[in-house]
């Protein structure tokens, strides 16, 4: 008998899971539809997609080992062998760019991800609870934000030393108050809405209200901010590497490439032009994608019958 019960329970669960996932898939397809409809979204998504592919499968895509030197072929112009040419010790620039996408993707996604994960819940909880919690959290945000971020990042990078993990943590640490501030401001507006009161009257717990009623409604500005921040973080990674506080040569990073290209800017401008172009395109892709994602996630902005 109990065995039967377990079976029934399992079939129930499976049934529930099927219905729920069907609803989820429906929502996701709606979002994808909007992204496809918007030309900006298509461009943004493809740029980000290419960079992610490069980051994930760099060994498969890159034609050369990024550190393979070919002194005989240094400063070569683009050719069928080296599509984008080679650098000052004859390394293939295209391969280095592709490997550099790894560093860029890891640093930007991780640091923005951590910043959002810390900042948004902190801001939302502070605003929702108010009182002393709010004061303390705001105080933390303001103290961190009161230092100029350039100086703070440089100082922290100098103290903790250059490593991938350190860069991520430092960037996350300096940017999470921005998300906290936005989340807090949005939550302050949201919590006065009647829908929150309605949820309370249904007996929803604070956690449920924060998760289901407040977070989805405050996401728009946060997504936009995060999209722009992705680009900024890639910039920072490059900048730190450029200054020698980030990844260290011979690692492949766009920043290091810029730095090395800078030395030869007069003799071999391609060495700096290629990474610069890639950086610009990436940043553009990030902000386009973020903008369209914001639209796609808002049911009101979707056209009817989609």
């Amino acid at each position: 008998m109990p065995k039967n019960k377990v079976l029934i329970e399992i079939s129930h669960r499976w049934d529930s899971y099927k219905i729920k996932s069907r609803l989820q898939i429906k929502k996701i397809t709606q979002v994808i539809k909007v992204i496809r409809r918007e030309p900006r979204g298509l461009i943004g998504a493809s740029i980000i997609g290419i960079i992610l592919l490069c980051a994930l499968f760099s060994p498969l895509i890159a034609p050369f080992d990024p550190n393979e030197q070919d002194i005989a072929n240094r400063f070569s112009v683009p050719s069928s062998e080296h599509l984008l040419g080679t650098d000052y010790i004859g390394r293939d620039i295209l391969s280095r760019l592709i490997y550099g996408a790894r560093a860029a993707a890891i640093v930007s996604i991780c640091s923005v991800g951590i910043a959002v994960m810390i900042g948004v819940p902190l801001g939302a909880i502070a605003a929702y609870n108010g009182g002393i919690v709010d004061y303390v959290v705001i105080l933390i945000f303001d103290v961190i934000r009161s230092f100029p971020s350039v100086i703070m990042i440089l100082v922290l990078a100098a103290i903790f030393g250059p490593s991938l993990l350190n860069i991520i943590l430092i960037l996350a640490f300096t940017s999470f108050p921005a998300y906290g501030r936005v989340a807090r401001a949005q939550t302050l507006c949201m919590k006065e809405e009647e829908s929150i009161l309605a949820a309370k009257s249904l007996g929803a717990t604070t956690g449920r209200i924060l998760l289901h009623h407040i977070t989805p409604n405050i996401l728009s500005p946060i997504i936009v901010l995060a999209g722009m921040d992705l680009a900024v973080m890639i910039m920072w990674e490059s900048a730190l590497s450029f200054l020698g506080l980030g990844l260290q040569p011979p690692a492949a990073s766009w920043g290091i490439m810029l730095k090395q290209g800078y030395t030869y800017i007069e003799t071999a401008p391609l060495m700096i032009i290629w990474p610069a172009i890639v950086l610009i395109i990436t940043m553009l892709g990030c902000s386009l994608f973020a903008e369209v994602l914001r639209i796609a996630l808002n049911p009101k902005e979707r056209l009817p019958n989609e």
Partner: protein
Amino acid sequence: MNKTIDKVPLVQVQGLKTYFYKGKGILSKVFGKGLRIVHAVDNVSFSIEAGKNFSLVGETGCGKSTVGRSILRLVEPIEGKIFFEDQNILELGKGEMQRFRRKAQIVMQDPRSSLNPRMTAGELIAEPLRIHRIKNSEREIQDEVAHLLETVRLSGDDAEKYPHEFSGGQARRIGIARALVLRPQFIVADELTSGLDVSISAAILDLMQDLQAQFKLTYMWISHDLHMVKYISDHIAIMYLGKIVEIGRAQDISEKPMHPYSQALFSAIPSVKPGQATKKIILEGEVPSPIHPPSGCTFHTRCPRKLGSICEAQIPPWLDAGDGHHISCHIPLETLRK
């Protein structure tokens, strides 16, 4: 059938006071400045019989919505007792409160802001079931959602639509379905028909009455629409500036309001019968601020029948006109009756 059981009040409110504090930042706490108390609800008592329609009437800012919200403990009253089936809900613990939430529900005024715009109608109606873990499988939840959509006369396809895709009347039906899904005994309907066209609000009122019969519901209506209140209620309480000024059976009050404020209120209703309209009592001035309500009778600043200094100095007594009809006024009952 059993009349004695019918007469037992389902909800009893005694001496309810709800104040809001404005400017309660740390600085104003330290310096004791800027703290202003809004007397939203000031000593309100009434009771609602099971299965009946009780209406709380008044103009913007009189505190009627706050009373409704206090009863459901969506705002915390500072004083008073609220009995629901002999339980003082202001003393309930967390678990008991959760059980109470299943018995008493509210339908909010503004469908646009009271429904989460990022959830579909289906998710909105299913949410109470998930919160209270009433149905254990997703299939049952979906069936229940479909059933409720049908009950409020929407179609099953509407489950996948978002709130902004509905018209005002339909959005209110979703609010009603959401309140109904827990099978409550008591529903507070806060300005349910305001802002709707007459034909649509008529349909909503018909629906609410059908549901009342079907689910044996008790309604508390909060409204400024006196036509609707006259039509729907068994009992009416009229509020002015946080206080009830007159309370009684609907027919008594709508036929012969006695309090000077109620008289002005009822005379002001525009009537569709041209030429038959009664002489209007036009009130002077504006409703005073609830931060500094007038002393004595709060209506004395605008009352066309003010007696004199007694109205300014003393809180008026409750006059009993029989049949549960009470008026809070200094004018003697005999004079009011005329």
